[in-house]
């Protein structure tokens, strides 16, 4: 009986892949990592919130500002329509990610209809997730560039420092996620991902969804709350 159980676990994992709780240690590790990331982003978010409204000079996030020395009027810096689109893109990337994981888990199941084949294509959904993640980064690059052109850099004021640090750290996480996705996609093209790889894809998916939930918090706290 135990032999049956052992034979179903990838040989590389036997004796090394599971903790004494019976849980895969890599999955325990990624959850512990995500827990530590919660603390990192909590420190960045709290820094942003503490400095919010304490900038001596503009530009400001939600209201226009006139520079007293030059008379130049700076408009409110945040572009909510653009950020709403990037938020939607990131939410959809999470959907593509779960569909990719489901496709890998169900690789061996028969696919009768065209819909089954589309939903069951891990390559399609991994590619879509990476494209949507890259699109989000494109939105962020556009936003950062336009802010700098409008007079807000990381050195301009407290808002600029805390804003660029917070969203920059998040963007760096998204970039790491996109690289991870592209690596997994390359493996899928090279040898195909099946149920035995589900744990690896699951771990990547957990990281990706965490990046998504962090953005959910940032979108509300930084962009929407005035």
């Amino acid at each position, binding site marked *: 009986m135990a032999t049956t159980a052992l034979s179903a676990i990838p040989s590389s994992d036997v004796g090394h892949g599971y903790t004494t709780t019976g849980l895969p240690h890599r999955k325990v590790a990624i959850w512990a990592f995500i827990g530590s990331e919660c603390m990192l982003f909590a420190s960045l978010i709290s820094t942003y919130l503490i400095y919010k409204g304490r900038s001596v000079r503009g530009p400001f996030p939600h209201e226009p500002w006139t520079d007293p020395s030059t008379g130049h009027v700076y408009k409110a810096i945040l572009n909510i329509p653009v950020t709403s689109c990037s938020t939607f893109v990131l939410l959809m990337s999470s959907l593509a990610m779960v569909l990719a994981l489901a496709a890998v888990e169900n690789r061996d199941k028969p696919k009768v209809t065209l819909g089954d084949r589309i939903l069951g294509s891990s390559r399609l959904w991994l590619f879509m997730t990476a494209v949507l993640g890259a699109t989000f980064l494109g939105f962020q690059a556009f936003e950062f560039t336009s802010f700098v052109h409008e007079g807000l850099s990381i050195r301009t004021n407290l808002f600029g420092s805390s804003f660029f640090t917070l969203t920059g750290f998040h963007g760096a996480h998204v970039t790491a996620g996109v690289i991870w996705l592209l690596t997994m996609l390359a493996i899928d093209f090279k040898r195909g991902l099946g149920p035995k790889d589900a744990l690896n894809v699951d771990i990547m998916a957990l990281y990706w969804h965490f990046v998504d939930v962090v953005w959910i918090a940032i979108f509300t706290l930084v962009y*929407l709350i005035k």
Partner: protein
Amino acid sequence: MSADTSHGNSPQAVALEHQLGAEHEHPTWSVYWKVATILTLITVVEVWCYYLPGFVATAFFVPTLLVLSAAKFVIVVMFYMHLKYDHKLFRALFTGPLILAMIAITALLFLFGKLAIRTGLLT
């Protein structure tokens, strides 16, 4: 199969049982699509609230956004990260630091005067 594995006391046997259980309990594709629709609708409502000057001026604006954001956060964690279906150790590993992080943010906001409790007893 489950009867076989339930008798195995080795970590690998328990792991297999857990793995199989998790596979059976994961949501279906249709659930994922429904969750995505709900998340999109909540985002639309959030942005809509932002563009209602009358609502922004009220005391309900910030709490409403925080509740909607928290709802999105919980939905993603429960359904997309499968925390609703996974082992409770994973839940503890995530919610423990998350609660600690929220306490830290709240404490810092009080410490730096961003939040205050006005009871009328203090002058």
